[in-house]
C-alpha cells in the first residue's frame, strides 16, 4: 500500500485530529517556539502550556535537572493567565489553522469551571485538557488527581461550564490509576490524557542540596515510558473512552507501542527537546509502518496488543 493512501485521522473524544501526534503541554509553549521545524498546524494537535485563572510567576530556579534517560522539571505552571492566553496567544494559533487543546489548572474546582467558561467563548479551542496532575504546585494539581471522587467533581464542573470536549490528564502518582480513569469516565469526560510526570528528585552532591529549587519535580522522558505504557494498557481495558497516551516517546516505535497499548493518539513532550523535529518523524514513521503492512488506517493498530 502506498504511504499516501494511509488514513492517519483519528477522533479524540470529538476532536478530529489530522494525525495521531499531539504536542504535550508545557513542552511546546504556545505553538511557535519551534517554527520552521514543527509548525503547529502540521501535528494532530497542540496542547498549550498549562494555563491558570490568574498569571503565575512559576517556581524558583533551578527548574530542571537531567537524570538517567530523563529529566526532572519544576516549572510551577508559569503562565500569563487565561485572559492573556485568549487575547494574545490563541489568535495566532487559530489563524494558522492549528488544532488547539487548552491545558488548564486550578486551585479549586470553581477555578477550573471559570477557566473552562472563558475558553468556551473563545474561538479556536478544540478541547480542554484538565491538568489534575501537576506535581509542581502547592495546591490543586496532583492533589485533585489522586482522589477519584475529586477528579469526578472537577470533570463534572467543567462539563457544565463548556460544551467543548473535556480531557482530564491523569497523574501516575497514584495507587490505582484505573479507579481514577473510571471516575473521570463516569463524570462525563470525553477522553483521557495520560500520563503526566512522575514525582521525583535529584541531589547536587557538591552543594549538598536538592538539585531543583522546588526540591521535588516531575520526571519525564524515556525513563518513564514502560510505566506510562503499562498504565495506558490497563486503563484502555477498563474504560471505553479514547486515550491520549504518552510519556517518554522518543521515536516512532515508542508511539506505535502506545497505539497498540490502546491509545487513540500519542503525545510527545521531552522527546522534542532531544530531537526538535521528532513529531514529524513520528508521523512519517507511523504512516510507513502502516503502509508496509497494508494497514489502511491508524485505527487498525489501536489496542492491537490487548489480548
Amino acid at each position, binding site marked *: 500500500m502506498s504511504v499516501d493512501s494511509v488514513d492517519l485521522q483519528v477522533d479524540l473524544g470529538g476532536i478530529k485530529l489530522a494525525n495521531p501526534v499531539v504536542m504535550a503541554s508545557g513542552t511546546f509553549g504556545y505553538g511557535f517556539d519551534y517554527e520552521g*521545524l514543527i509548525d503547529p498546524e502540521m501535528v494532530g494537535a497542540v496542547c498549550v502550556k498549562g494555563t491558570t485563572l490568574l498569571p503565575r510567576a512559576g517556581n524558583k530556579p533551578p527548574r530542571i535537572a537531567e537524570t538517567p534517560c530523563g529529566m526532572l522539571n519544576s516549572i510551577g505552571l508559569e503562565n500569563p493567565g487565561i485572559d492573556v492566553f485568549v487575547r494574545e496567544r490563541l489568535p495566532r494559533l487559530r489563524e494558522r489553522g492549528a488544532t488547539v487543546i487548552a491545558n488548564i489548572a486550578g486551585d479549586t474546582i470553581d477555578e477550573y469551571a471559570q477557566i473552562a467558561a472563558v475558553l468556551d467563548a473563545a474561538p479556536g479551542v478544540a478541547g480542554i485538557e484538565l491538568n489534575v496532575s501537576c506535581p509542581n504546585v502547592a495546591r490543586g494539581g496532583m492533589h485533585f488527581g489522586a482522589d477519584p471522587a475529586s477528579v469526578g467533581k472537577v470533570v463534572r464542573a467543567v462539563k457544565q461550564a463548556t460544551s467543548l470536549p473535556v480531557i482530564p490528564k491523569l497523574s501516575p502518582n497514584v495507587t490505582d490509576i484505573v479507579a481514577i480513569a473510571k471516575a473521570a469516565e463516569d463524570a462525563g469526560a470525553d477522553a483521557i490524557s495520560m500520563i503526566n510526570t512522575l514525582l521525583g528528585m535529584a541531589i547536587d552532591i557538591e552543594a549538598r542540596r536538592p538539585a531543583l529549587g522546588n526540591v521535588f519535580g516531575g520526571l519525564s522522558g524515556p525513563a518513564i515510558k514502560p510505566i506510562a505504557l503499562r498504565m495506558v494498557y490497563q486503563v484502555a481495558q477498563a474504560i471505553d473512552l479514547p486515550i491520549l497516551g504518552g510519556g517518554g516517546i522518543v521515536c516512532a516505535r515508542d508511539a506505535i507501542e502506545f497505539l497498540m497499548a490502546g491509545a487513540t493518539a500519542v503525545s510527545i513532550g521531552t522527546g522534542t527537546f532531544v530531537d526538535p523535529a521528532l513529531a514529524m518523524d513520528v508521523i512519517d514513521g507511523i504512516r510507513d509502518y502502516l503502509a508496509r503492512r497494508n494497514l489502511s488506517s491508524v485505527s487498525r493498530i489501536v489496542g492491537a496488543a490487548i489480548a
Partner: protein
Amino acid sequence: MPYLEIARVLRHDCVGPGLHEMECLAPRIAAAAAPGQFAHVNVHPVQGVSEGTPEERALAANSAQPLLRRPLSIFDVAGRRGDADGARITFLYKVRGAGTALLADVRPGDCLNIMGPLGSGFSLPAPVPGGHGDHAPAHAGATCDRAPHALLIGGGVGIAPLVYLARALAAAGCRVTVFYGANTASEMQAVSRRLLTASAEGRIEVFTTTLDGSSGRTGIVTDLLTAEQSASALERIDFVYTCGPEPMMASVERFATARGIPGEVSLETALACGVGACLGCARRLKANGEAGPVYARVCKDGPVFSMGQVELGPVVDREEESK
C-alpha cells in the same frame, strides 16, 4: 527561526587542558548566526544516513544518555556568509561532565545534529551618520567624534562568545579592547590565534591574565580594571561586554555601573528545549511584577542581558526569595 542541521565535523582539536575547538560545516546556521548566539548540540553523533532500512531508521531511538542537548556559544564563523558549501561554525568548549566528555570523542568526519542559531545575541553596532568610522554603536550616542570603544572581558571559556563579537565590532569600525583571563597560558592558544588574526584586520588590543603567571599579568582578569598597564585601554569606554563566572561578571558590572557605562552580560544555565518553549531555564530579573518575581528565559530572552537586569552571583538562584 532556528535551523536544524546535520553538520559534518571538519576539525576537532584539543587546544589546552580539557579544552576543545570544533569546526562544523553548518551553512544555514553560520549564515544566520550573530555574536552572542548559541547552538544546541546533540552530543551523540548521527548514525550514517545509509545505515539500515528507512523503516529501521524511522523506528530507531537516539541515544538516551545523556538525553538533553548541550548549549555552546558560537565561537567563530568562517567562510562566506550564505556560502552554501563552505560556511562553518566553530565552538570552543571545556569538558565539564558527561555530555561534553562524549562530545570530545566525536571525530572529524562524524556528523552532529545541531540546532541554531539561538538566543538574543549581543547588541551590535548600528550605522550612525556623522560617526568617525562608518559605523558606531547606537548606544554610544549619535555624536561620536571618534571610533566607539568597546571593552570585552572574558574569564575562562566564557571568552567563547566574545571572540566572534570582537571580530564583528572591529569589522564595524569600533575600537576593541579585550581582557582575557585564564588559569594558564596553555588554555589560551585557540583564542590568541583568532584574536591575533583579528587584530591584524582591525583595532583589537588584547590584555591577558593567568593565575599561574604563565602569560600576561598574574592574577584574575578583573585585576586589569585597576591595573596600571591597562590604564590607557580603560579610557573613554563606550560599552562593556562580559561573559564568564558570575562573580567575575558581577565585578565587571560594578565597574561599568560606577562609571555610568552601559554593558551586557552573557549567562549560562542548564537548558532543556533551548528555544523558549519549556520555561526550564528561568532566571529571576531584578524588577518585580504584579504577580511577584519575574523570570526571563536564558535561552530565548538571553543568554545576553543588559547590565543591571539580572542579579549576578554564585548562589543567586538560591538566596533570592528564601521565604
